[in-house]
């Protein structure tokens, strides 16, 4: 019974990973990936690994989404200038 919380966290991670792969638009995928990062952090907490949970939070909640979104912005901006001046 005390494993229930682990099961919940595991299932959330599995579902979220599926969703992250299924989102084909990178900006939307970045949103799902940031939620996946949160779920992973919770999973690490219930697996009694707070150190890893902290680093996952630090990386997954702001850093990785920021990197991906900046890349998306750069590639989209490129597409826009190719079509012509705004």
């Amino acid at each position, binding site marked *: 019974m005390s494993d*229930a*919380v682990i099961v919940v966290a595991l299932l959330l991670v599995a579902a979220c990973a599926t969703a992250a792969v299924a989102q084909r638009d990178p900006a*939307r995928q970045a*949103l799902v990936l940031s939620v996946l990062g949160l779920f992973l952090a919770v999973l690490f907490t*219930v697996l009694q690994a707070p150190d890893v949970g902290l680093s996952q939070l*630090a990386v997954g909640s*702001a850093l990785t989404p920021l990197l991906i979104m900046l890349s998306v912005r750069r590639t989209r901006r490129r597409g826009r200038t190719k079509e012509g001046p705004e």
Partner: protein
Amino acid sequence: MNGWILAATVELAGGGAAALWGVTTGPTGRRVIAQNLATSALCPALLLLSQGYGRPSYVDLALLLALLGPVGTLVFARLLAAELERERPSAWALTWAAAGLGAVVVAAVCAATAPGRATVKLLVVGALLIGGNVIASRALSGGFQGVRGG
């Protein structure tokens, strides 16, 4: 298995599933709101887990999430500003409900711990969580305008 962990499990299952559903469906604006609410759902769950495991040091996780979660949402609000400007998503009822949930959990955990430095930390977490979420919602419904070059 104690009450704290049970509460955390329920919150994790409910909040997590709702956030996951919200973030994978619908227009972009709604997805960002769901991402924001994931923070407000999971941060109290982390506090409950810390209490349930009897490990005050786990509060650091909630602290970090309360700090960085809204920052992450601001990233999306900033870099998706053009799309959000069109949609102007807002879900104030949900935001305040989540804020209320956070307040209740913080109050409950505070009541269960002896007053001292731990209480101050919990209150800081609560303030950051609620403040951050409200501001992030504000930012989504038109916090950034005219963001082109910057």
